[in-house]
């Protein structure tokens, strides 16, 4: 099976108000889809539907059984009152062999026992991004991953994702900024 997500005629409405209608797409292994649209067009909702958090009002969604999802949402799932080390251990990443390499790259290697609250927004985002960089899944879903990131990290992220695509992983993301990723575009009007 090459196909990992197959969406057919997805529609979503909230309190009888339509958000988007009849969205269809296929996502194969090694492919990426960039979801675009204005504010309030339902990008986040679509991603949450694919994660299985929200149910579509209409339409069919097939996600292949061997798909393992890593999701990066607006919320970081990090605890402000814990140290970086504790946060990473909550994410089950503290023993990952590549962890040190990424921490060095982001300049966070010396401050593992600092409280998360003492980091800037962008630095916190980098910690959250570690979930993507150290993933063990084959379907990466990212909701606006570039918010608050510097150019260097953005480039690094897009290069990383291109490498992952070559390895046969699939990526779905929404972004206002054009990331340099080999992706199809999906427009929510």
């Amino acid at each position, binding site marked *: 099976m090459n196909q990992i997500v197959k969406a057919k005629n997805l529609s979503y409405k*909230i*309190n*009888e*108000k339509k958000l988007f209608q009849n969205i269809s797409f296929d996502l194969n292994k090694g492919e990426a889809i960039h979801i675009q649209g204005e504010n309030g067009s339902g990008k986040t909702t679509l991603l949450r539907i694919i994660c299985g958090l929200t149910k579509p009002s209409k339409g069919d969604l097939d996600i292949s059984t061997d798909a393992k999802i890593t999701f990066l949402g607006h919320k970081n799932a990090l605890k402000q009152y814990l140290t970086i080390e504790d946060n990473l251990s909550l994410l089950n990443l503290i023993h990952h062999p590549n962890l040190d390499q990424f921490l060095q790259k982001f300049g966070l290697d010396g401050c593992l026992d600092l409280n998360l609250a003492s980091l800037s927004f962008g630095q916190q985002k980098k910690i959250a991004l570690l979930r993507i960089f150290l993933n063990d899944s084959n379907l990466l879903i990212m909701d606006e991953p570039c918010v608050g990131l510097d150019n260097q990290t953005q480039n690094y992220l897009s290069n990383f994702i291109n490498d992952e695509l070559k390895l046969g992983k699939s990526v779905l993301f929404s972004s206002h900024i054009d990331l340099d990723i080999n992706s199809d575009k999906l427009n929510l009007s």
Partner: protein
Amino acid sequence: MIKKFIHQFASPKTYMFQVNRAYPYIFYFSVIIYSLSVFWGLFLTPEDFVQGNSYRIIYLHVPASFISQSLYLAMAIASAVYLIWKVKLSVYLVRSIAPIGAITTFIALISGSIWGIPTWGTWWVWDARIVSTLILFIMYLGLISLHDSFNNFEKADKFLSILVIVGSVNIPIIKMSVEWWSTLHQPASITLSEKPAIDLVMLYPLFGSIIGFAGIVTCLVILSSKFQIFRREKNKSWVNDYV
């Protein structure tokens, strides 16, 4: 198949149509029955030897307290239907029964405590039935405020029906424990299993008033459910055609 049948039968549109046809009949029938049997109870039945004339409050109090509990049962059934088959209409009904249930419980509480003044010499006692009715009243209010606090109706519907079902599990427990705790209230006047504890002369108007009150409450529920349906389905085309 059952699901399809229920969805077709229980669409708000057919409900509205059927209910509108039945409403005047239920209304006039129940108003006549209720006023006749209340009149019968208040003037034509003989005086009670123990309680004197104050016992006549029974014709106003018992229907309200009986209906207030039955309404909760109805809500519980409707919420189960909603959670199992996702029938929208049944959750509209749950939401529209809740305020009516609160009002009937309020009537039962007030009439009961006024009745208590001549019979017990006090308007409130910490007694089993009274306390469990008070808890029921608070539960109705809690249900309403829970449903109204969510902007997303679908979420609100789910939470409302869960809470109704959890509460319905608890209602017999509340009754049991509270009765076990203390009791001063006279035992129920009418039970299904035993012979009625009151005289037949007094029983007929009581039955009449219960039936009449049930009809009036049904009319109130119909009105309130009409409002809920309009509120929830105002964007659907049939509502505009209907109006």
